[in-house]
Every structure is written in structure tokens, then in C-alpha cells.
């Protein structure tokens, strides 16, 4: 049987990567290109959508050339994208109206406070399963409609289109101004605050609440299924899968059964647990989101705990404090001591996300004494990732009641053995890393390949999953960390209190 390949585009926050996978789920070619981060004002983060589109075309063409496959051997394209990043563009010219407002952008803070004060704000959590927070796309779209003169009127006339990043790429790939398809996948749509998470349709009441004209919204489609044909590549390919990046990682980790969970450790960290076809509303500060949908099948849901700052704290240790030369050296520094020396760091750089949702909380270092060295600080930096994961897992246990037998991990921080062992000890459960660390792109490839029959079903994908490492909890350490957990909880409360207006 001749080999068949799937191309995945991972349109991330710092770069766009095109990766080709074979049927065994092995990585065959990778091309990557970074794009510029624009910071026009404090708290504002923007990307140029046209630069990202150019990088997508370029890296995809390069990766396709690298595999030098016979015509027809690369059979589908899947897309995973940075979530909640908001693009508004002109249907007639294809030009973005403004730069994309990135998910890290906090300009909608005051707008969200105004919206939250309205009596009908309770509608948002009921219908969307999400917090009314500036982290999601809807308030950003509203901001653009308010900020650009004439934008709302043009949007109402259908001249402007809205989309998250996958929507923008699919429209361009399928022809742009020449017949581009304006669609979004259901996982991305579930992050806008505009979709009813149960019916998976745009909700008229929510559109009213946010003041968004329906005419500019893309059609919501399943994550696994053909969205259109990419004509803007060297070879035409069916675009057969699209998922938000964290949902793609869940898919790539083959967490298809209720209770299965993964956490991706990057700049921030995102823990998603599959809750099956039932939406589990959170009473403990998590969000209920769409995990994935296969065409013609019911939607699968997930509970999600988003942590804003994990790897970013290591970067801070490196770039702002200069205590280490590279991110990996944090482990070397942390191993110069045997514990945290009583030191706790709460990295609430721009508030705390799950399970606290305290936008005004600010970071702190607690427990400083003259005994504390840079080694202890390095420990506290790594432990902050573990403690924050514990906060999220505890909320997840309380909400879903689904047992988490092991946590599947991926992302850059998983090469840190000290952190991975700490995670196993602080959670009291095994931590498992898969053989293919590129789970985001793999998930996009799996979605697309599944839609066109490269893989027969999700069981076939499970067979591709292999363990590359496992960390098991040590009973003594588990007990010691249980006893230390109240210190962390107290530090979190102090960071929230610090952010309150005096």
C-alpha cells in the first residue's frame, strides 16, 4: 500500500508551522515561520493577518515540497489555530479592517466590566458555558465595531466578515475574494461568547447583548469534515479538519473517552478533560467548551482549565531577572536546592484565569526570608505550574466526577523532569508524555485524515498513541505536598487581595 500523508497547519501565537504526518502519526516534514508581535499600547497585542496568511502559504508549500510525495499522496489539510484571536476583514477586497486582536490582548477589560454590570449579563454563562471575560473573542469583535468609524453599518450590510484565525485562513485558502468559503469550526465558535454551546448555533440574544450583526458571522461547521478545497497551495487539497489549538491537542492525545484529559504546557497551560456528549456546566470556575465534532455526529464536550502563566514565568526568570541563560536551565538551578525553602510565587501577571477568574489579581513572591536563594526561586517558579495545575484538576474532579487515571501532558515544559515529577506528586496521579510531542498539529492532521478516510475511526488513532515517558507519584512526596497545599492557596488569596483597589 502506498504511503498517504496529511498536512497540518498549526497557526500559533508566535509562529505558523506546516507539518506533514504519515499514517503512523509520525512527523515527516516541518516548516515554521514566525510572525511579528505588535504591541501598540500597554496591554494591546496584535498580529497582521496578511503576514500570517503569507506564512501559511509559504510554509505549507515548503513542507509539501520536503516530502516530495507522488501526486495524490498528500490527501488532506487540517488546521489548528490560536484561539480567540479576532480578525475582521473586507469581503470585497480581502483586506483586514484592523490588525488581529490577539487572545493575550487585554484592551476589552473596561468594556467587559460595563457589559458584566448589565442585568442580562447572566445570559452569557448560561448560554455559552464561558465566563464573561475579555479573554474570549466576542468582546474583541465588539471593540472593533465600536472603534472603527462606520464599521457596524458596513457589517450590517454584509460588507465585513468576522472570523477567528482558522476562519480567515480557510476563506483565503478557498479563494478569498474569488469565492472564498466563510466558515468556522464549532470548537472555535464555542470560544466567541456568541454561540449557544448546546445547540451550537449563533444565539440571537447573545448577538444582541454584544451588539454584533449576524451578517458578518461565518457558518459553524463540524471540526472533522470537509470545509472546502484549498486552491491556494501548489496542489489542491481538501480542508478536512479544523480545531482550536487546545482542542487539537486533546484530539492529538487521542482523549476520546469521557474522563480522559491532557494538559499542554507552554507559555500558558491548558487542561482539557473530555466529558463526552453531555455538557457539564462548571460550578468551580472552569469553562464548558466544545471538544470536537465529527460530521454527522453529536458534539463532544470538554471541561477546560486555562492557566495564563506557566512557561511565561520561566521566561520571566530568564529575560527579566537574568537568573538563567535558557529556559531549560531552570531545572539545573532548581536542582541546586532540595525544596522551595518556604517560597511561593503566584504568577498573576495579568490576573488569574481558571479556576479563580480574578482579572485584577497581581503576582507575588511569598515567604521570602534571607534563607531563600535563587535556587529556591527557581523551584518556586516550577512549582507554580504544578500548584496551578492542582487548582484546576481539583475543580475538574468536583465538576465532572469523572476519574482522571493519568494526566497526558505535552508542550515544551514536558522535557523538564523535575517539573514532571513534581506534577505527579502534587496531583497524586501518574503523568504520561506521548511519543509525538507535536500534539497540536497531530490533532489537526488526525481530524483531516479521519474525514477523508486515511484513518478508519478514532480507535485507529488510539493505536498510534505511544508513551514516551511516565512519572509516577511518590507516596511520601504526595503526603508532604498535600500538607503544603494550604500555603499555596493562601498565597493565591493574597495575590487576589493585592489587586483589589485600595
Amino acid at each position, binding site marked *: 500500500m502506498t504511503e498517504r500523508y496529511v498536512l497540518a497547519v498549526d497557526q500559533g501565537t508566535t509562529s505558523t508551522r506546516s507539518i506533514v504526518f504519515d499514517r*503512523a502519526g*509520525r*512527523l515527516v516534514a516541518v516548516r515554521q515561520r514566525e510572525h511579528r508581535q505588535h504591541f501598540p499600547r500597554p496591554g494591546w497585542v496584535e498580529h497582521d493577518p496578511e503576514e500570517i496568511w503569507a506564512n501559511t502559504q509559504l510554509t505549507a508549500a515548503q513542507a509539501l515540497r520536503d516530502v516530495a510525495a507522488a501526486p495524490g499522496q498528500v490527501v488532506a489539510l487540517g488546521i489548528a489555530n490560536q484561539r480567540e484571536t479576532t480578525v475582521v476583514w473586507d469581503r470585497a477586497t480581502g483586506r483586514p479592517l484592523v490588525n488581529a486582536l490577539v487572545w493575550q490582548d487585554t484592551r476589552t477589560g473596561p468594556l467587559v466590566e460595563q457589559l458584566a454590570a448589565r442585568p442580562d449579563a447572566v445570559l452569557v454563562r448560561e448560554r455559552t458555558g464561558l465566563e464573561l471575560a475579555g479573554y474570549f473573542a466576542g468582546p474583541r469583535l465588539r471593540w472593533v465595531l465600536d472603534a472603527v468609524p462606520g464599521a457596524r453599518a458596513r457589517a450590517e450590510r454584509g460588507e465585513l466578515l468576522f472570523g477567528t484565525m482558522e476562519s480567515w485562513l480557510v476563506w483565503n485558502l478557498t479563494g478569498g475574494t474569488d469565492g472564498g468559503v466563510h466558515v468556522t469550526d464549532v470548537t472555535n465558535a464555542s470560544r466567541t461568547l456568541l454561540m449557544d454551546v448546546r445547540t451550537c448555533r449563533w444565539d440571537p440574544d447573545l448577538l444582541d447583548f454584544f451588539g454584533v450583526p449576524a451578517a458578518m458571522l461565518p457558518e459553524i461547521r463540524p471540526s472533522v469534515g470537509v470545509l472546502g478545497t484549498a486552491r491556494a497551495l501548489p496542489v489542491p487539497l481538501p480542508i478536512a479538519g479544523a480545531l482550536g489549538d487546545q482542542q487539537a491537542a486533546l484530539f492529538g492525545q487521542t482523549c476520546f473517552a469521557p474522563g480522559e484529559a491532557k494538559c499542554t504546557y507552554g507559555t500558558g497551560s491548558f487542561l482539557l478533560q473530555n466529558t463526552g456528549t453531555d455538557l457539564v456546566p462548571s460550578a468551580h470556575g472552569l469553562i464548558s467548551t466544545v471538544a470536537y465534532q465529527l460530521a454527522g455526529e453529536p458534539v463532544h464536550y470538554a471541561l477546560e482549565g486555562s492557566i495564563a502563566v506557566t512557561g511565561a514565568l520561566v521566561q520571566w526568570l530568564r529575560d527579566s531577572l537574568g537568573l538563567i*541563560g*535558557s*529556559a*531549560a*536551565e*531552570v*531545572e*539545573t538551578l532548581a536542582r541546586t536546592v532540595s525544596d522551595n525553602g518556604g517560597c511561593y510565587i503566584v504568577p498573576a501577571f495579568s490576573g488569574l484565569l481558571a479556576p479563580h477568574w480574578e482579572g485584577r489579581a497581581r503576582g507575588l513572591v511569598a515567604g521570602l526570608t534571607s534563607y531563600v536563594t535563587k535556587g529556591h526561586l527557581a523551584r518556586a517558579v516550577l512549582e507554580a505550574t504544578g500548584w496551578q495545575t492542582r487548582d484546576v484538576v481539583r475543580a475538574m474532579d468536583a465538576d465532572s466526577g469523572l476519574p482522571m487515571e493519568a494526566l497526558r501532558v505535552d508542550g*515544551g515544559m514536558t*522535557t*523538564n*523532569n523535575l517539573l514532571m515529577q513534581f506534577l505527579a506528586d502534587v496531583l497524586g496521579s501518574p503523568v504520561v508524555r506521548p*511519543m*509525538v*510531542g*507535536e500534539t497540536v498539529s497531530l490533532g489537526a492532521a488526525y481530524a483531516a485524515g479521519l474525514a477523508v478516510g486515511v484513518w478508519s475511526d478514532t480507535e485507529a488513532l488510539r493505536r498510534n498513541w*505511544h*508513551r*514516551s*515517558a*511516565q*512519572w509516577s507519584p511518590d507516596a511520601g512526596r504526595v503526603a508532604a505536598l498535600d500538607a503544603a497545599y494550604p500555603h499555596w492557596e493562601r498565597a493565591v488569596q493574597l495575590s487576589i487581595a493585592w489587586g483589589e483597589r485600595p
Partner: protein
Amino acid sequence: MPGTVQSIERAATLLHAIVESGGQMGVTELAAAVGLPKTTTHGLLRTLLSVGFVEQDPRTGRYTLGAGLLGLGSHYLDANELRSRASNWADSLAGRSGCAVRLGTPAGLQVVVVHHVFRPDDSPQELEVGSLLPAHATAVGKVLLAARPAMARSLTDAPIEALTPRTVVDPAALLAELQTVRTRGWAEQRGEYRLGTGGIAAPVHGPGGLVVGALGVSGPVDQLFTDTARRALQAMVVEAAAAVSRELAS
């Protein structure tokens, strides 16, 4: 193959010894560590000092690596950094070979496992990061010894430990094998550490060209060393180690 220049080889060994000591050594310790007379060691250090490859603390008289080496881009490579840079390639090697993968760095006559990828069959396996392996009886160890001939010769100072009946304990045979490893660029062992388990490994070079680690696969001898498997594995291991070296250079 033309003979090596002994004094350069010795100077390189001194530099390795300083790195492995954690950064600072006196002349007496250095002489003992590399097995040379103190006067010879002192002469070598004076030359290294003059070209800036070592520096001497004026208070203690102890030697550290010099700024001249940093200029070459071959400064001390953090083991955790090495793991993080090697991880994708090690995963891919395990995936393609079906074998467990280890990345080792030198620690005298032993090897520290700095990265370990499980054999991709989902059987129960223990993570071995941080454990020590004997250099003379493992493929990763032979690669590292081959890169440091003076260290390798110190093996002959004491009887070589036979870990299995297959361990090479004859010093002349072992040194000859290391010479082969150096020339062809990869090493193997067939049940010399644990009976029935073999390994194939290749060198990972740092930005300055020094061998900073060894990347290898291990598995049952009867599976690794059939003619076709051996050739395929050897190519995969060499390719993966070269990819990590390129990653370190970038």
C-alpha cells in the same frame, strides 16, 4: 589513519577534566585526573593559559575554562538544555526504530543518562534519567570514551570490570574498538552490560565541534543485530545524532 598529536589530545583532556569537575581545579588534582606527571600538566596549562583557553584564579592558583573558549562557542552545555534541544529527535528515533532511546553525557568513566525515551510498545518501563552507566560496556559510553582518548587510556590503570561474559575486558581490544568507533562515527555493544541487551550509539557534537553527548538505541541483541536491522538502525542513529548536533549549532 595518521597518528594523533599527543599534546593536543592531552590539552583537550585537561579541558574536559575542568568542565567535569564543575569548573575549578588545581594543578595537582588535574594531573591526577588525567594521569600525567605534574610538570607535564603544568606546561600544558601554561600554554592553554597563554591562548586564553584556561584562566587562573590569582588567589587560589586554581584553573577554570578561559574566555577564549567561550569565543569559540563551545562553552559548557547544560544537560537540561541538551535534553530540551534533543527531545523531538529522540522521540522520532524511538518512533522509527521501535527501540528505547537514551542520551548520555560523560562523567569520568561513566555515562549520565540525561534523556530517556521509552520503547514505544506501552509496556511498563522506568524512567532512567539521572542514572549512571558504565562507559566501557555501553554503546553511548564507547562513543564518549572514543572522543576522549586519554580518559579511555586510564581504563587500563585498573582491571576492567566484567559485567557479563561478553564485556570486553582486554584493554588492547577495547582501545582498538574505540579507535574504530572514532573512525566510523558510531559504536555498538552486544550484551556487554546486560546479557541479551545490545545498543547502537552515535556522537552528538556541541557548537564548537566537541562531542558533548551520545545518542543511542537499545534492545534485544537478537533483534538489533540481524544484518538488515543493524544497518538500518545504525543509519537512523547517526542521522538522529547529526540532527541534534545541527539543532545545537543553530
